[in-house]
């Protein structure tokens, strides 16, 4: 075919190749670039023609991929890949082969490129698709400011905890601790405090002792209805707290 200037000569990837599919034709915007081998590697996606020239795609530039088996839309089952960006073979006008989608030529819309990888072995499409999914997941969006991914051990890592047996977390004051809890944690805390409130009154009745400190501790943010105590009621009792 004509000069495809984005094609260059390079060696196939050596490491992290999750899937390799020989005898795979690739089409860009409906034009065939020839037959070669598709390498779905952890670092990038590469295709090399049998002559040794080819191209690579970086996963962050790939917005979606899919398996197409609808022969009424496209005559061969293939792996479809949509890439953000322009590749030099795209033309703004002109007839498009086989009636498939033309490239969007609007200036104010992000340009996209559509690749179709047609393996001679159709049964490989599942594996190719899955390998793509796995590799995409290895390249999460670095610009994602939507979510706070900066977690400093908020998750209770059980294994780590068991290994560092001396490392007991510090005790939070009520307000501090509350802000560290998820909604579920807060609900659990309320439940436990409710249970504690019920047991507090009996506990302190049994001991017959109420100190100023203990009253303050249990009145923090909690409605505790402690029944009046008869001092020394169980003086001789042995109490296990």
């Amino acid at each position: 075919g004509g000069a495809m200037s984005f094609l260059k000569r390079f060696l196939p990837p050596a490491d992290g190749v999750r899937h390799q599919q020989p005898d795979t034709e690739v089409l860009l915007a409906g034009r065939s670039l020839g037959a070669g081998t598709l390498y779905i590697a952890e670092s990038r996606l590469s295709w090399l023609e049998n002559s040794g020239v080819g191209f690579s795609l970086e996963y962050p530039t790939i917005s979606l991929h899919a398996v197409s088996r609808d022969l009424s839309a496209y005559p061969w089952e293939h792996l479809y890949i949509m890439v953000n960006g322009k590749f030099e073979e795209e033309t703004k006008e002109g007839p498009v082969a086989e009636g498939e989608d033309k490239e969007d030529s609007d200036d104010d819309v992000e340009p996209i490129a559509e690749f179709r990888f047609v393996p001679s072995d159709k049964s490989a499409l599942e594996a190719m698709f899955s390998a793509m999914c796995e590799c995409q997941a290895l390249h999460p969006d670095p610009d994602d400011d939507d979510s706070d991914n900066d977690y400093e051990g908020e998750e209770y890592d059980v294994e780590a905890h068991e290994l560092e047996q001396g490392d007991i977390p510090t005790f939070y004051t009520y307000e501090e601790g509350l802000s560290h809890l998820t909604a579920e944690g807060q609900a659990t805390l309320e439940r436990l405090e409710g249970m504690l409130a019920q047991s507090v009154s009996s506990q302190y009745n049994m001991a017959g002792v109420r100190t100023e400190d203990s009253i303050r501790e249990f009145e923090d943010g909690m409605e505790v209805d402690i029944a009046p105590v008869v001092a020394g009621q169980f003086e001789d009792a042995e109490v296990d707290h």
Partner: protein
Amino acid sequence: MEISHSVKERTIAENSLVILLQGLHGHVTTVDLRDESTATGRVTNVDAFMNVRLAEVTFTDRQGTVSHLDEFFVTGRNVRYVHIPDQVDIRATIERQLQAIHRIRYFGGRDKGRREFPRAKHK
């Protein structure tokens, strides 16, 4: 309803609404993409980065052309909106996902007894 094997991914999911999307496994859902195309299909996986995998998909591109795709994967970055099906109880779904995460965190893998909360130092 698969929970990730990664501690980091579980933490991310637990602290964002991705956890709701992860509860949509098996449901037919429409995903609106950043470029205004849409994909309707059955959710097979959503990860912590909001990458969405669908099966049996009707895809409408930004020009309105419809195509049918067997398997479909879109990166989280390109997802604008995920439609929650009417029959999904959002609150129950989130709670169920949280419970699944906590089962793994506290009881998964080993037989050793696990404390649910870290011990607190007493004054």
